[in-house]
């Protein structure tokens, strides 16, 4: 159908804000990041000189970067593993009605709705080397020595574990809500049929319920991977990448190198490293979304 001239103008006018928004906030920074990653930009300079892949070569040679790359994977995989298992358990526990279920659901959702920086600061206190309430509790239970408690954020391995656990704590509500939706979408008849057919809880869960939830688990997992892989809040607040760069992930390393370290080009090169990985995840996500539509 042919549109009147006025309509076409109106349509374009309505469309422009969205376009500007995407170009301005997503497109420009992305292009800048690509340009910076192959230039010699620093925070203090105004010129731009093309340097090819020199920045990539230089970051690849830095052991801090290689560490951050490994940490990124460890961080994402472990946090997501904990989140998916935990979210499964929580979703199962919250499926059937019980007294106070609404309150419990609300409490579980809290870490997600509260600003992450606040939550992370709370954890920073709780894991503090001197005032740690966690250590106090463990000492009271005689699990650690009161005068030689674990330095949660001060030892490389413990710091990594702390960062992973806090991030998992933060992501758990999101996955729980998604999995709960998937779980309640399974008709009640089906687990009941399994019960009559002679299956116990574990068989029903692993052979019937989980396979039926596979698409929705994939969605939760892919969102979780993207959120975790691109996030630096928890690392930044809890450890600032320390001790000795042992908890740096790619986003935090890019921020430290590019913004705080002043070498914008190097920071951009680190960020661009994330792009192929995220593109892969996004592609997988769209595929899964499409598959669930078809079935």
């Amino acid at each position, binding site marked *: 159908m042919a549109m009147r001239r006025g309509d076409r103008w109106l349509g374009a006018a309505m469309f422009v804000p969205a376009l500007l928004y995407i170009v301005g906030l997503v497109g420009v920074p992305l292009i800048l990041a690509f340009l910076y990653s192959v230039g010699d930009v620093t925070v203090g300079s105004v010129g731009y000189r093309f340097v090819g892949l020199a920045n990539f070569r230089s970051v690849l040679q830095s052991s801090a970067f290689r560490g951050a790359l490994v940490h990124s994977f460890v961080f994402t995989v472990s946090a997501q593993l904990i989140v998916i298992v935990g979210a499964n358990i929580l979703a199962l526990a919250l499926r059937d009605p019980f007294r106070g279920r609404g309150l419990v659901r609300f409490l579980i959702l809290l870490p997600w709705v509260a600003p992450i920086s606040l939550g992370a600061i709370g954890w920073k206190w709780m894991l503090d080397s001197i005032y740690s309430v966690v250590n106090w509790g463990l000492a009271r239970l005689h699990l650690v020595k009161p005068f030689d408690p674990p330095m949660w954020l001060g030892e490389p391995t413990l710091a990594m574990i702390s960062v992973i656990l806090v991030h998992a704590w933060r992501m758990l509500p999101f996955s729980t809500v998604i999995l709960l939706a998937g779980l309640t979408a399974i008709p009640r008849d089906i687990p009941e049929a399994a019960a*009559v*057919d*002679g299956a*116990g809880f574990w068989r029903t869960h692993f*052979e019937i319920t989980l396979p*039926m939830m*596979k698409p929705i688990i994939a969605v939760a997992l892919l969102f979780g991977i993207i959120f975790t892989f691109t996030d630096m809040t928890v690392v930044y607040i809890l450890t600032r990448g320390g001790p000795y760069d042992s908890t740096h992930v790619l986003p935090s390393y890019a921020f430290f190198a590019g913004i705080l370290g002043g070498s914008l080009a190097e920071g951009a090169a680190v960020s661009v490293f994330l792009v192929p990985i995220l593109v892969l995840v996004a592609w997988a996500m769209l595929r899964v979304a499409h598959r669930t539509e078809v*079935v």
Partner: protein
Amino acid sequence: MATVETRGLTKVFTEGKLGAVNDVNLLTREGEFMVFLGPSGSGKTTLLRMIAGLEEPTRGDVLIGGRVVTRLPPRERRIAMVFQSYALYPHLSVYKNIAFPLRAQRVPEPQRRPKVEWAAALLGIGELLERKPRELSGGERQRVALARAIVREPSVFLLDEPLSNLDAKLRASAREELTQFHKRIGTTTIYVTHDQVEAMAMGDRIVVLDKGVVRQVGSPREVYDDPADTFVATFLGSPPMNLIDHGDVLAGFRPEHLLPAALVEGPAVSITVRVTGVEYLGNERVLYARIQDGRFAEQRLIGRLPSIYRVEIDEGEVVRLAIPEHDLRFFAKSDGRRTAPRSLAWQ
């Protein structure tokens, strides 16, 4: 094989309210096909779910094969159930669906295959074993659900409205197939339905339920010809039994027993009615009428006249109809229960 018994079985969902199932005492016979029949909300499905172990009774006991199973989970009751939705496992092939109960019982793989094939062959779905449930028609799904139920040779079969998802044409043939199937395997079966045609056609005995209370247990002939109360009388039969207000009793008779006086032989009660409507249904005519005069004037009646009687009856006509005396049933007006027959003076 086994019998199923319930003793004072009661389910109260909301404290202080009338239960969904109230004090039900039933005992099936060995190999019987028993039908629970009632309108929606009559508690028939809740009763079945308590027998299956999917619902915990508030009071009372369930016995299967003489053993109290009230506290046992479903899997320890040696029952099989077919759900209204069939509840097939959507991610598993037909083969794996049917094999699931065997896997759950830890039957080793080499013994599983022949059993699955036996069950599939019995239901004529041997060709479908590699398909997924979503690739099947409604009738095929129902057969898969049945095959999954029989594969481990349960002692009791529980069927929850298994035909209600089929279209009308398929339903009639599936009904007949189910009856044949029951005859062949002879397992005690409890069948829940709200469809009186299914109940009448398939049941050895029918349990008529209303508001969680058993109104009558009997063969299809008994519940139809000798209803225990006005609920059974009006719930079974379509159109329902005519009930005429007669002092402290209600006199009831089936529409098919109300015939033109000339056609009725033997002792009969005759009445003059004004025909208010005639529906021609091919195999029969349904007459809507009001009693013309006398003490029951203006009471409504419904009659069914088989098409073999070619008597001319038109709307607005005043005709003389009669009911054979032995087809009259009497119910106490106070509680609706059957009472002794008495002679009626109609006009």
